[in-house]
């Protein structure tokens, strides 16, 4: 399972970076979304995978015993997902506006602000 997730993370990162390097605005956003998902998977993976042992203290015990899943990475992912969701929706509105105003979705044509 770890191997599969590791490969998956790698693919998401690679695809994300490839898409960011393309010249189209839409692909840029998709690339960022993929990278964001890749990093969420990475957090999940780095927290260590434990199958079927949720971190819930049984009623007759005072604390957790034995092997249990680490709840922190899940909380982190949840936070990261919410944040990236907000940012991505902003990004989509931004490229829509940019497309309307600049009238191109070619990033290379957006060089007005770089001119001396």
């Amino acid at each position: 399972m770890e191997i599969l997730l590791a490969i998956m993370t790698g693919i998401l990162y690679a695809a994300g970076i490839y898409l960011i390097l393309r010249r189209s605005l839409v692909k840029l956003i998709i690339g960022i979304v993929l990278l964001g998902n890749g990093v969420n998977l990475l957090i999940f993976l780095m927290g260590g995978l434990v199958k079927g042992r949720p971190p819930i203290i049984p009623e007759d015990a005072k604390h957790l015993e034995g092997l249990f899943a680490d709840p922190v990475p899940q909380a982190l992912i949840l936070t990261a997902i919410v944040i990236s969701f907000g940012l991505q929706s902003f990004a989509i509105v931004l490229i829509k506006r940019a497309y309307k105003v600049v009238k191109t979705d070619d990033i290379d044509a957006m060089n007005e602000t770089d001119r001396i």
Partner: protein
Amino acid sequence: MHSQLIILPILFQALIAVILLFLWSKPRTQRVVSVLGSGVSVIISALLFSQVWNNGIQTMQIGNWEPPFGISLVADTFAVVLVLLTSVVGFAVSIYSSTNVVSSRVKFGYYAMFHFLIMGLTGAFLTGDIFNLYVWFEVIIISSFVLLTIGGRKAQLEGAVKYFTLNMLASIVFLTAIAMLYGVTGSLNMAELSQIIPTIENKGLVSTISLIFFVGFGVKSGVFPLYFWLPASYHTPPAAVSALFGGLLTKVGVYAMIRVFTLLFPISGVNQTVFIVIAAFTIIFGGIGALVQKDMVRTFSYLIICHIGFMIGGLSMFTEMALVGVVFYMFHDIIVKANLFLIGGFTFRIFGNNKLSEMGGLMNNYPKLALLFVIPLFALVGIPPLSGFWPKISLFGASYETSNIGLLVAFIFASFITLFIIAKIWNQVFAKHASERDDLVKLKYFNQFTKREKTALIFPIVFLALITLYYGFFADHIQVLSERISYELMHPNEYFEAVFNIKNETTQ
């Protein structure tokens, strides 16, 4: 020492922002609330500063969870000084905005976002938890996106696309580093991490993680070769927004870098070489970039990059003396850069343009203003006794002592380039005869403003210039402060003991 006061600057900014959201369609009330709120937050930050100055590092555990399980807020001297400077710059920019930012922008929530941005900055300075730092960074970038795009002019949107992409990418890189760090150490509390990281045997992995952090923060602070978003976007929004960005946003990246590379990954070996090389390149490329610009505000954008190199260079030497220089330089730079962008907005109202070739005659037409504008410009070069001079002594001295001659050459090179650029601006804007002004540009010019509006433009510049003068003439105060900060940064054990509330025998 536990103190509930730490969270107050953050909560207070959140409160103002929420109040402002309710005043959505009343720009006039919004301006008043924002200025008053910013004024009060300066007082709150000053209180927090005096508490930390008198009683040492203050901590607070959110929700009363014992460290390292909950989120800790840690106010050491470095953090509180930055919080204080943030609120000071916020106050100045808030007043400036009342003339500089038009009502239509205010109706789209300019002030609310402004206060959310200040809240994010304050939170980033005060947090003691690395994931919480990420969250504050996101608060900062999302509010800065809105501030950058509000108004929706073509240049703004183009700049925003670049700004957005690279900052988002930086956040992802930063989050990747956090994930890897958590995987290796199992902790997110910076104080605890400072104890765990030295015990990890796989030094290669630690070094890799630290460099990923460096890339993440490097994009945010604008180091070579990751700075291209900065000059492409900083000149596009209204001057008030640029001032806030130029003064504070890149510095929060530098702050995070200083925090992480003193507390978690003390610089040594390969990292040191990488840092020194990158700092030197940042200085040179920023300087040369500034040299070729024909627009005053864009010149300032490149100068930000150039001077970020000073701070990274000082950090890379990693001696107490160098850190004194870095910290002092940072305090000076926050005030001066914010002021320069405010001046950029001011001259725009005088000339209708910020192209160097179309400006001129400021000294003849507005002699008092010219005298005022010269203060931050000369402070930037570091003409003694103005504020830029004192930190440079420490930086030059440290680079000579640690025999980093390359860095020393870069520092001197940057000082000369800055001098040259300021001389160029002096010639073009102040001394040259004014060319015929083309009033066809649809704009409310400076002489059309009412007295109240003029005051709102001039007061913040005077205010920040006075602080610059204070830095210069009472440099010993700032020097003592910087030495204390530098001592704290070089002895991370005190940070750890403060967070975990371990009583130190020697101090009792």
